[in-house]
């Protein structure tokens, strides 16, 4: 199979990262913000894997595994915080946390 052009993959990673970034800025629902962060992490991992594939080295894939581990830890703590926030304020509005004291 023909090798994939590296610019194409980098453009895809950039598009996905920008979409995730726009999602973080645009949405107020905290679950959507977490999902957009996942999209951004995934796009960063895609850029790592294509860089590793360019030189035929496993380092890019190792970095992707680390990103995967970080995403797992981040999403578990983030969703626990979402549950707490919802029990406390009865709302998924990210701005609701502004009412906390201290």
């Amino acid at each position, binding site marked *: 199979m023909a090798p994939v052009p590296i610019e194409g993959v980098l453009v*895809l990673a*950039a598009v996905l990262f920008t979409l995730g970034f726009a*999602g973080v800025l645009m*949405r107020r629902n905290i679950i959507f913000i*977490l999902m957009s962060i996942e999209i951004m992490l995934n796009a960063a991992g895609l850029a790592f894997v294509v860089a590793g*594939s360019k030189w035929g080295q496993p380092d890019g894939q190792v970095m992707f595994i680390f990103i*995967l581990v970080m995403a*797992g830890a981040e999403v578990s703590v983030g969703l626990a915080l979402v549950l707490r926030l919802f029990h406390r304020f009865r709302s998924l509005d990210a701005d609701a946390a502004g009412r906390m004291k201290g």
Partner: protein
Amino acid sequence: MNTPFVIASVVAVVSTLMVITRTNVVHALLYLIVSLLSVSLVFFLLGAPFIAALEIIIYAGAIMVLFVFVVMMLNLGPQSKTQERMWLIPEVWTGPAVLAVILLGELVYIFASTGGITTSGKTVPAGDVGFALFGPYLLGVELASMLLLAGIVGAYHLGRRGNDDEQKEER
């Protein structure tokens, strides 16, 4: 241009666009899974089959199941959909969207202005990844295990019912 790659990237971009514009959380999650599957196909085309499998098993499997569980625990009704539609008015999203599109145009211009470079076209087998992971990156693996432990403890502590402040609130 590699046709399977073009198809997979178009699917990824369209489904990601749907993720950030849906009002229903479950619909957005399903689109996110499609997006992750198409990115996994791109990984496969790049000669990283191990990473493609990990993407499906951990991202589309475990992390998305976590999201679905939380959405089920929150027990959102139809009123959350109307609330979401209220939050997603054009005045809120046009500004950030325009700025993000400018940023994207800049990135695409930078990548397009470099010459025609392709990937090596050869597969990096999972064994090489394993040797790298437990050879030069051993310290990183140890740090990742500590991060996961911190994540477990943190999620347990935050998710526990009846912390002190909430009990005080109920009394």
